[in-house]
């Protein structure tokens, strides 16, 4: 803008108007910076022409904007032509923060990629170090890897965040300390790593340790600012996406390995030792970091998948559970108590808990109650009912089975989830009646993270001691 125009008060407002119009345009992912520039050039020329015909700047602006077309129609037209832009977006340099599509790979974005890849390779290498000391990867030969798997993956995810975010030194020490302490304690446990015995408490530790340590990753994720449920909720969202990406990468890896076998079999070369000892372990470890980076890179680009899946499955699960309860009532059949029933019910609660968590993670807390909220409450309510019925059936028989560590941990997990879902149902019902704000549900879930992690730590670290490492 030349200085002469700046003296004119309306000139500033024209610039502001154009600026507002352009930022409106840029909201669509289909319109890139250079497109907006092209359109802006058009708009300015139109305004200039109209100005020459005697229109005031305001009038000229209005007419020009009208002629160039409504922004909605324009972005729709651009989206039709550049439909790829609505999809692709995961550029390898994926700078998730950049407004709109990344046109040129940003230096920061590609640095993040390289750090992530380096850490992934480091995780893969770390996975092979125990192998140098003759420890086999095969869990049928030694249980060293299952016990320590968390230490070959989670610290690298945490390290990525520690590099990527401004993590205070105290938090770094805290996170690193948690990992070191856990590694020392678990490896000092006198478990029998030989796979002959049935190592109940060892398996419990293997299952619960990652849940506990995930909290340390969370501290790194939130950059040490653990207080405030907003950041913790982000971490929950991240967890869901990471899980989905990891599963997808694992599926791809499975296809890759399968094809590798087939191809090399065709030329009569046995690649199984190579795949078993190198590709699989290094892939399992490295993929966690790659998935982490992917989730971060795609964060603002792709809709979160976990809430989408939750939305799809909440009505279906609600329907199945309702049908189950109704059938039980109609036929008068009781739950047949078998050994695995507790595990099955736990799994059901975990799924319902996950559906609820990821559904509320995506819900606008200010939106008024809707039909979907009722569906969700129905789901949680019926899950609770089924759980109570199952527990009641088990309760009368539990003394017959005896309290093994497995059963106790399953029962404990059941109670932990039961309390969570009961609390959620209570708050949800109050929210639906207009009693409390929706955010109460958030804070309930976010506070409950401690309970879950605490119980997991209890099982991972104290059960082996209590049950004599059997």
């Amino acid at each position: 803008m030349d200085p002469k125009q700046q003296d004119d008060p309306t000139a500033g407002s024209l610039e502001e108007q154009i600026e507002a119009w352009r930022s409106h345009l840029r909201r669509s992912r289909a319109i890139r910076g250079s497109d907006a520039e092209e359109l802006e050039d058009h708009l300015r020329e139109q305004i200039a022409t109209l100005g020459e015909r005697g229109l005031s700047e305001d009038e000229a602006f209005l007419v020009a904007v009208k002629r160039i077309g409504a922004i909605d129609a324009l972005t729709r037209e651009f989206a039709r032509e550049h439909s790829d832009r609505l999809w692709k977006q995961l550029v390898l340099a994926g700078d998730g923060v950049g407004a709109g599509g990344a046109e040129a790979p940003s230096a920061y974005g590609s640095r993040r990629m390289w750090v992530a890849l380096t850490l992934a390779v480091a995780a893969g290498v770390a996975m092979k170090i125990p192998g140098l000391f003759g420890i086999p990867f095969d869990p049928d030969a030694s249980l060293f890897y299952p016990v320590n798997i968390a230490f070959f993956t989670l610290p690298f995810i945490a390290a990525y965040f520690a590099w990527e975010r401004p993590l205070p030194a105290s938090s770094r020490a805290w996170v690193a300390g948690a990992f070191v302490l856990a590694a020392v304690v678990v490896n000092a446990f006198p478990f029998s790593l030989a796979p002959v015995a049935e190592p109940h408490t060892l398996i419990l530790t293997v299952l619960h340790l990652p849940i506990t340590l995930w909290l340390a990753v969370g501290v790194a994720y939130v950059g040490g600012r653990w207080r405030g449920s907003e950041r913790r909720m982000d971490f929950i969202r991240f967890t869901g996406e990471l899980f989905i990406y990891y599963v997808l990468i694992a599926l791809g890896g499975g296809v890759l390995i399968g094809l590798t076998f087939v191809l090399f079999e065709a030329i009569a070369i046995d690649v199984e030792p190579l795949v078993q000892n190198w590709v699989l372990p290094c892939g399992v470890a490295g993929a966690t970091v790659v998935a982490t980076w992917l989730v971060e890179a795609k964060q603002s680009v792709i809709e979160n998948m976990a809430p989408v899946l939750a939305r799809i499955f909440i009505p279906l699960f609600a329907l199945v559970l309702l049908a189950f309860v109704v059938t039980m009532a109609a036929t008068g059949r009781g739950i047949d108590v078998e050994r695995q029933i507790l595990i099955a019910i736990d799994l059901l609660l975990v799924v319902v808990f996950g559906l609820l968590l990821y559904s509320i993670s995506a819900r606008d807390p200010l939106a008024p109650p809707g039909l979907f909220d009722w569906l969700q409450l129905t789901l949680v309510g019926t899950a609770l009912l089924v759980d109570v019925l199952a527990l009641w059936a088990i309760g009368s028989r539990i003394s017959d089975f005896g309290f093994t560590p497995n059963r106790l941990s399953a029962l404990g997990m059941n109670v932990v989830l039961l309390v969570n879902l009961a609390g959620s149902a209570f708050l949800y019902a109050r929210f639906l009646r207009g009693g409390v704000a929706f955010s109460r549900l958030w804070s309930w879930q976010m506070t409950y993270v401690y309970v879950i992690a605490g119980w997991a730590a209890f099982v991972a670290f104290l059960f082996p001691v209590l049950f004599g490492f059997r």
Partner: protein
Amino acid sequence: MSINKDLVAASSTPLVLAILAEGDSYGYAILQRVRELSGGALEWTDGMLYPVLHRLERSGLVESRWEKADTGRRRKYYRVTEAGREQLADERRQWRAVDDTLRKVWSALSEAVGSDVVSVPFSQWS
């Protein structure tokens, strides 16, 4: 007279290619030229030209470059490529065939039915 949207869309490719075949140009000037040629009958929403240009560019019929305009701003100029000229020639043949056919049927119609049909304004035919 307003021209049917489908017709506008269908004619946009040959029109833009032909205007660019006259010489390199940019969006605003192309639209001015369209207005001039059609006498205002072909009303495009200005912004819709750009997706068309981008489509042509993607299919390799035109190519673009940024230049500094005399206003000091950057301006995106388009130039028709060799493939674009071929496409234009092809479009021209097709449009001519359509045009010839229509002309023949119009004149056959006016001869057969007489003057009362011909007096109906053209706009009501489209």
